[in-house]
């Protein structure tokens, strides 16, 4: 029985590790280490290899959830982790300077994978004033010739993480 992989990527601090922890049936495997750069102002630890969680389907088949490191210097891990993946979830931290450019960076780097599969964009930390509207993200996607769901989510909520995966599955089946 083949294993199924869902990949969660996105900006450092967006909550990839939290999202996996929120929905995984097993305590997530983490590769967090101390942050030594400017990210230390935001969080004390960062993922440097991958996060890993799992879900079990009714017949025992597993869905593996892989969280990537967020920083572009770990691009090599992105390429490793997407191999055989079902689809991509991109978490975008809307408190950062240019969230739309952040989304674009991940879509560029995962372009081949996303073209073969599909992606869901999860916007997190929306409770700030001067952040782009959801429509601005759709416009940016449209300029790339893409139409993916853009969902405002709280990755601490199991239901929101579940919604992103369900949206991804619907997209893969019906879009």
């Amino acid at each position: 029985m083949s294993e199924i992989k869902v990949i969660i990527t996105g900006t450092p601090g967006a909550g990839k590790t939290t999202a996996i922890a929120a929905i995984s049936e097993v305590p997530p495997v983490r590769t967090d280490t101390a942050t030594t750069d400017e990210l230390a102002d935001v969080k004390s630890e960062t993922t440097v290899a991958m996060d890993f969680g799992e879900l079990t389907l009714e017949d025992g088949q597993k869905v593996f959830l892989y969280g990537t490191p967020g920083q572009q210097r770990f691009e090599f891990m992105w390429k490793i982790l997407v191999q055989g993946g079902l689809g991509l979830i991109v978490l975008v931290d809307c408190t950062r300077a240019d969230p739309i450019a952040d989304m674009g960076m991940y879509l560029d780097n995962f372009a081949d994978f996303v073209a073969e599969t599909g992606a869901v964009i999860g916007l997190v930390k929306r409770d700030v004033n001067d952040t782009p509207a959801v429509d601005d993200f759709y416009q940016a996607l449209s300029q790339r010739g893409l139409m993916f769901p853009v969902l405002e989510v709280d990755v601490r909520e199991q239901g929101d993480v579940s919604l992103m995966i369900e949206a991804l599955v619907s997209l893969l089946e019906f879009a």
Partner: protein
Amino acid sequence: MKYLSSIGLSAKDETVLKSLIDLLGARTSEEWIYRDDVMVDALLLDFDNSEAVAAWNTKPESVRRNTIAYSSEIPGISFARRLAKPLRAADLIAVLKDIEENPGKADKAPASSTPPPSTQAPSEISTLAECVARHSEGLLRLTFGDREVVLDRQRRCFSTSESGESLAALLAHPFQEFQVTRGADVNLPPDGSIKWLDQKALLWLVGQSGSHGRLIDGLEQGGLFRITRWPGFGLVRPSQTVLTLCSMLTRKNAMSIEEIRSVSGVPEFDIIAFINAASLTGILVAQSGDAAKPDKPAAKPELPTERKGLFAKIRSRLANTRA
């Protein structure tokens, strides 16, 4: 053999119902069994339980068919079959016999109803979705007993006495059961005492809950539809049916209701609710069916059965986490 299930009954009512079913014996033509793990032939809905009505409202038409509205007052007039509380054997037998004899008997606002063509003059308002669609300016107050919703089109916001699921349940009531007040007749309390929310959340719910199988005026039954983006779901978590429709309608090429129905298996009733909701929230692109025919796209290749099965299993697993 026929199966009956229920939604939202109190523990006591459910026990009584199961006992009555066990005792029916030969008093109905067919043997009835209470089951909630199979496709049922009849569904008893506690209409006084707003959460149950909201849950029922998100279920596909195939589940909702032959719903019996069970209430202490006169239930929604859109229900063809009703039972008054408390549950009595004679009433239950009568309604089950009716289902045996007329399994397809439609409610007053059934999925199969044909909306008036858009070329005609605007029809009388028959659904909440139509009412809200036509009210494009100023204030609109919808009152249902001591529950209410106020929509301010000017300021693009709304306020309500209800929370998410309960608001969805409220909006599912037939339009005729609401008291409607418009414009200057809507008296608002001082502004500081009202919590206003973005109107899109309400407009989406009005379309989803208040369409009753009828497209709002201006949308053609034979038209082609697509959406420009996924909706913001706002107050109520989207059902799997809604996610399916989002995916299908964001395809590059617009689709007809019939195409959507045949590819997705989603009942027309739910497709119309989605299209109305998309129209009300301004994300719908509608084309005339005739004009678009030359550009009709090739059908998307069918997914392998194994793949579909996998997706179904993932959905089933995740449904538990979203409950």
